[in-house]
């Protein structure tokens, strides 16, 4: 597997252009990522090549997974034995590996705990998609914001929320990151700027746009030195939702520092992306709104990281938003309640061979960045972290009744004045949770 890669924008050849007046970019144009900037000057709508849509939902042949011609060339030039042009250093590699192993081990433990009856409701696991989360979030600073969907455990972990806090939250304990009030689908952390965790798809994208707006506002109105970037993660199903399009428009209009990351895992519960979308190539929706659209192999953390560097860099420099479509796959069902019967086993097997963790391991060992034993050591360490998180969650207390009326309002006088003329929040029973509200 080619672990070396850089994201590229590839224009599919336009078969026929109804607009003869315009000059479309007809031939394959391979543009290096740094020319994202040039993208806005190409507003042409390129007509899709006819695609063979197989009912098993395999990717259409015309979607070109990005591969690195640039980096391959570099490698050929140099002596193959010494590889000074590796994409990552040893420390970076170990960090990425550790983060992905944490994501995977944590999610596997969630499944175990769910079936043991320690957590309830809807739990959506991220197995298989770790490369996207690690690839993007590990490039961020603490002040940068991340907005996710219900599949947010690993985004929270990558952003820095401790495994203990996330696990307790899933168990519904007071020590959870949201005091047990949010649950699996609402992971928030003010400290780490994890802005959630939203149950309805598309709900988080405007919130991310708002966070990016704040960055711009701070820079331009409050004159603070602010280059914070926001990342919005969402899936392929969301890309047919109105909020997605509305936010793409607003982000480009005001050149907000945001990156829209599409985790295209081909399935929205049981709805295949190809069955629900008129043009399945989501990256094309970026240029329609005037922002670069990039497609990248989301099973390869290094490719994702290269694209992420460019997109985040663009946003930090104030050049505006980017839409990144990551081709990825979830190894488990949509949620732990999903029997996952619709997906073709052959498709699952195909993507299992592209497991991002195995791929990174192979890259690191082949390029002598780390030894097997070092990586095994990391795996062991993570196992202990996850076990510790479970223990912590188990030992933590469940919320008391007194927590029931807290946090509904930032200012609890919002509960109003009771019939006796006093604020309801001043009622002595309020702190017990038994006041009449």
């Amino acid at each position, binding site marked *: 597997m080619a672990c070396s890669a850089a994201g590229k924008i590839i224009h599919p050849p336009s078969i026929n252009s109804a607009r003869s007046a315009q000059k479309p970019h007809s031939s394959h144009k391979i543009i290096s990522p740094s020319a994202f900037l040039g993208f806005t000057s190409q507003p042409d709508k390129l007509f899709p090549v006819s695609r063979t849509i197989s009912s098993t939902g395999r990717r259409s042949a015309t979607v070109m997974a990005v591969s690195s011609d640039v980096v391959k060339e570099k490698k050929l030039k140099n002596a193959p034995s010494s590889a000074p042009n590796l994409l990552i250093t040893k420390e970076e590699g170990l960090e990425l590996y550790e983060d992905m192993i944490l994501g995977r081990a944590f999610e596997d433990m969630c499944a175990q705990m769910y079936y043991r009856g320690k957590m309830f409701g809807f739990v959506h696991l991220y197995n298989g998609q770790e490369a996207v989360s690690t690839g993007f979030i590990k490039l961020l600073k603490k002040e940068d*914001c991340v*907005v996710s969907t219900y599949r947010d455990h690993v985004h929270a972990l990558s952003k820095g929320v401790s495994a203990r806090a996330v696990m307790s939250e899933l168990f519904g304990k007071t020590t*959870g*990151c*949201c*005091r*047990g*009030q*949010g*649950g699996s689908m*609402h992971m*928030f*952390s*003010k400290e780490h700027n994890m*802005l*959630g*965790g*939203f*149950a*309805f798809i598309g*709900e988080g*994208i*405007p*919130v*991310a*746009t*708002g*966070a*990016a*707006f*704040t960055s*711009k*506002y*701070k820079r*331009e*109105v*409050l004159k603070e030195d602010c280059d914070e970037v926001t990342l919005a993660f969402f899936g392929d199903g969301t890309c047919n939702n*109105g*909020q997605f399009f*509305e*936010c793409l*428009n*607003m982000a480009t*209009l005001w050149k907000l520092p945001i990156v829209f990351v599409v985790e295209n895992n081909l399935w929205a519960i049981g709805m295949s992306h190809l069955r629900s979308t008129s043009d399945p190539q989501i990256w094309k929706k970026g240029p329609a709104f005037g922002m670069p659209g990039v497609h990248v192999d989301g099973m390869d953390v290094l490719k994702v990281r290269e694209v992420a560097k460019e997109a985040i860099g663009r946003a930090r420099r104030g050049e505006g938003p980017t839409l990144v479509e990551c081709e990825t796959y979830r190894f488990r069902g949509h949620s732990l309640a999903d029997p996952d019967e619709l997906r073709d086993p052959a498709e699952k097997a195909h993507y299992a061979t592209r497991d991002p963790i195995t791929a990174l391991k192979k890259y690191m060992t082949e390029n002598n960045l780390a030894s097997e034993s070092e990586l095994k050591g990391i795996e062991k360490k993570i196992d202990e972290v996850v076990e510790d998180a479970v223990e912590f969650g188990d030992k933590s207390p469940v919320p008391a009744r007194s927590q029931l009326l*807290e*946090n*509904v*309002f*930032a*200012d609890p006088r*919002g*509960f*109003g*004045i*009771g*019939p*006796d*003329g006093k604020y*309801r929040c001043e009622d002595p029973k309020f702190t017990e949770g038994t006041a009449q509200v």
Partner: protein
Amino acid sequence: MEHYPRVCVMGEDVGHYGGSYKVTKDLAKKFGDLRVLDTPIAENSFTGMAIGAAMTGIRPVVEGMNMGFLLLAFNQISDNCGMLHYTSGGQFTIPTVIRGPGGVGRQPGAEHSQMLEFYFQSIPGIQMVACSTPYNAKGLMKAAIRSENPVVLFELVLLYNLKERIPDEMRYHVMQAAKTLVNKGYDPEVIDIRSLKPFDLYTIGNSVKKTHRVLIVEECMRTGGIGASLTAAINENFRYYLDTPIVCLSSKDVPAPYAGTLEEWTVVQPPQIVTAVEQLCEL
């Protein structure tokens, strides 16, 4: 906006146009295009954007060009504005103000004439206020902006062109009816409820204890309106002080028609109020 640089306005046509009802006239010239943001027509998204901005430190005031358009933002108002402080365990506050003019008057037709308080009243975590005079509109707006809680502020379309201290239509109808009643020898006490959620049951309670008869007049629909909630609340809390069942006069459960005469008959008129009071007092 002068005192707090983090206060900004977002909405359709609030900037260069000055607001569709000129509420934000000249603000863009003074404060700039980013602080008085002209948004594209995407209510759900720009309300969500306001919420995201509020979570990260700005205090936006969102204007729905017409209250009915806030329906398009219902997802964001209900799930994020109302509940996000709670689901984040208190980590993020949403100090937004969402305001919108609504109501019947000048025949705007069914969809533009809606009074939507009753859709929003069940959302936990938001406060709702309605202003009835230009005077209390200012006070309510200032308090709403200062509040850390999300506030939805309902305004009346008809209020906007008033320069004097003339009250809104329903209050005006009620005051007219009250004058008639006073002339007939009754002694009505009129309470103008400005806080729709939470209700000010203390003031209402004191009045009930004095008068023992309650008539609720509103512009919401009969079914599920604010009046219905208020009837339940008063019954629960002041049951023993009531001599008669509570009567609630509301708009008819029909879309507001275009024709002027029909429009007039959907809302409560002063003679109806007078008749209702007389009937109450005879019981």
